[in-house]
């Protein structure tokens, strides 16, 4: 087994055992740190001990018992849900339009959509903070949703545009030549076939909003502080195992989203 060729150039598995070890170590480096947080969240003590001397759910009780954390959780999830709706719709429409357009204009519009990904987040953050200050949008749900939608829409455009690449536009043309209006043809012929990329895009938008830190630090506050803003401040000032409990819940949540996305796109590969 070990002496069979692993590559086209007849390197054997034994000869590149080091590569497998290195690869394994890197994968452990990527995945393990976050997972270590899980046992810590069930620790009985406020001090760092691994494995924990005794187990309890006191940090979960602390989290669910705190009005501030509950409020922040509500703000984060509400903002993420609305952001998902806004950016998925705007991003899908734009991706569809860009897919059907040709030439220079399409390239320029596409580049504009990508700008929020290239411009450093800190710069977007202070710009928005200044802008919101004029309109009274700082520390409001509207402000948070607009900010998060700006960050999520480019990801939706990228994801849906790459999905449209493998879709044959002629199908929509056929529907239209048979009398369907363009919106109707899009909704009944095109959209069902790009369903998977659109779902992936929506999940990405959700997680982008839920995880957004830099801009939220500036524009979210008071009763509308997001979970990330409270976590950031807690991590900077005093580390409390409540963070471990929240982190565990967030890990479970992101694994569920990732699994949902993998399951949704799995049948396609077969």
């Amino acid at each position: 087994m070990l002496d069979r060729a692993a590559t086209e150039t007849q390197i054997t598995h034994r000869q590149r055992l080091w590569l497998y070890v290195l690869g394994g170590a890197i994968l452990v480096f990527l995945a393990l740190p976050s997972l270590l947080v899980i046992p810590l969240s069930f620790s009985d003590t406020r001090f760092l001990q691994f494995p924990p001397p005794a187990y309890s759910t006191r940090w979960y009780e602390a989290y669910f018992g705190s009005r501030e954390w509950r409020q922040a959780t509500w703000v984060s999830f509400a903002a993420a849900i609305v952001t998902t709706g806004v950016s998925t719709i705007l991003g899908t429409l734009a991706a569809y339009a860009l897919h059907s357009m040709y030439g220079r204009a399409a390239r320029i519009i596409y580049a504009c959509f990508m700008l929020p990904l290239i411009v450093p987040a800190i710069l977007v953050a202070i710009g928005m903070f200044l802008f919101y200050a004029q309109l009274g949008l700082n520390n409001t749900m509207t402000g948070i949703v607009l900010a998060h939608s700006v960050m999520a829409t480019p990801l939706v455009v990228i994801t849906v545009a790459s999905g449209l690449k493998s879709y044959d536009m002629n199908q929509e043309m056929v529907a239209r030549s048979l009398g369907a209006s363009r919106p109707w043809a899009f909704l009944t012929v095109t959209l069902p076939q790009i369903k998977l990329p659109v779902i992936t895009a929506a999940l990405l938008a959700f997680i982008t909003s839920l995880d957004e830190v830099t801009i939220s630090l500036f524009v979210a506050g008071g009763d509308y502080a997001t979970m990330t803003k409270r976590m950031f401040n807690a991590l900077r000032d005093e580390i409390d195992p409540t963070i471990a409990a929240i982190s565990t819940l967030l890990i479970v949540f992101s694994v569920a989203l990732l699994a949902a996305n993998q399951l949704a796109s799995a049948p396609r590969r077969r």
Partner: protein
Amino acid sequence: MTAATSPAPNEAALRAAGRRESLTLGALAAPGLALIGIVALAPIAWLFWLSVRKGDAYTLEHYVRLLHPNYMLSLQTTFELSVLVTVICVLLGYPLAYLIAQARERTASILLLFVLFPVWTSLLVRCYAWLVLLQRRGLINTWLTDIGLIDAPLRLVHNFTGTTIGMVHIMLPFMVLPLYATMRAIPRDYLRAAANLGATPSQAFRDVYVPLSMPGLAAGIIIVFILCLGFYVTPALLGGGRVMMWSMQIERHVTYHADWGAASALGVVLLAMALAIFWAVGRVIGFDRILGGR
């Protein structure tokens, strides 16, 4: 349409229909563009303007102030950290992407999950995990002391080391994913052909595989480097105030001093650096490859 020698009777109508079509499509992209333009880009343009204003006059004062050694040190830290993190990401990311690209479909998709899992995990959760692992009485120091390898705890976090480790952890997937996409598309026959023509395995790898994987590598490098240049959260948490990144200077000027002139000038310089690097590399390898879009 343009091939016709004499104007066809329906040419005007066709052109009008074409124009209507582009208008409709433009209208579909407009709401998203308006959102990004008004909420993100217009305020940044305003920052540009603020960076050259003092009172009612135009001035370059805010930029001249950036020549102060404090800012220069910060610029140096930012570049050192970004280069170091990018280099480590290449060293770790290339072998990993290579391994995943060579694996069978099913194995590859499982290995990719390990790379995607951190991406989907909250940034703050990952920073917290590193704080737990690296701090003075954190897991790594405790373990090393317990097995007798060290007497006094190592300083692993709230400094340059901890920031580097945390940043590499965050950036590595952004290196692996574009590399993997490029490597997966390299036809294996090329390597077989190289071997047939008498190349040793290392020659085939060096002269055939590496050059073909270059676009992915360049895309990974550019993404990681630009993200590092403007990164705020991880250096702020893991650097413990000892790693003064350019982005942290910006935050400081806004929150503590409400000095918008200086903050704007700092921001403009950061944006100019990011765009210059993006543009330069984009010219060489193509912008589409970096963003993976159209």
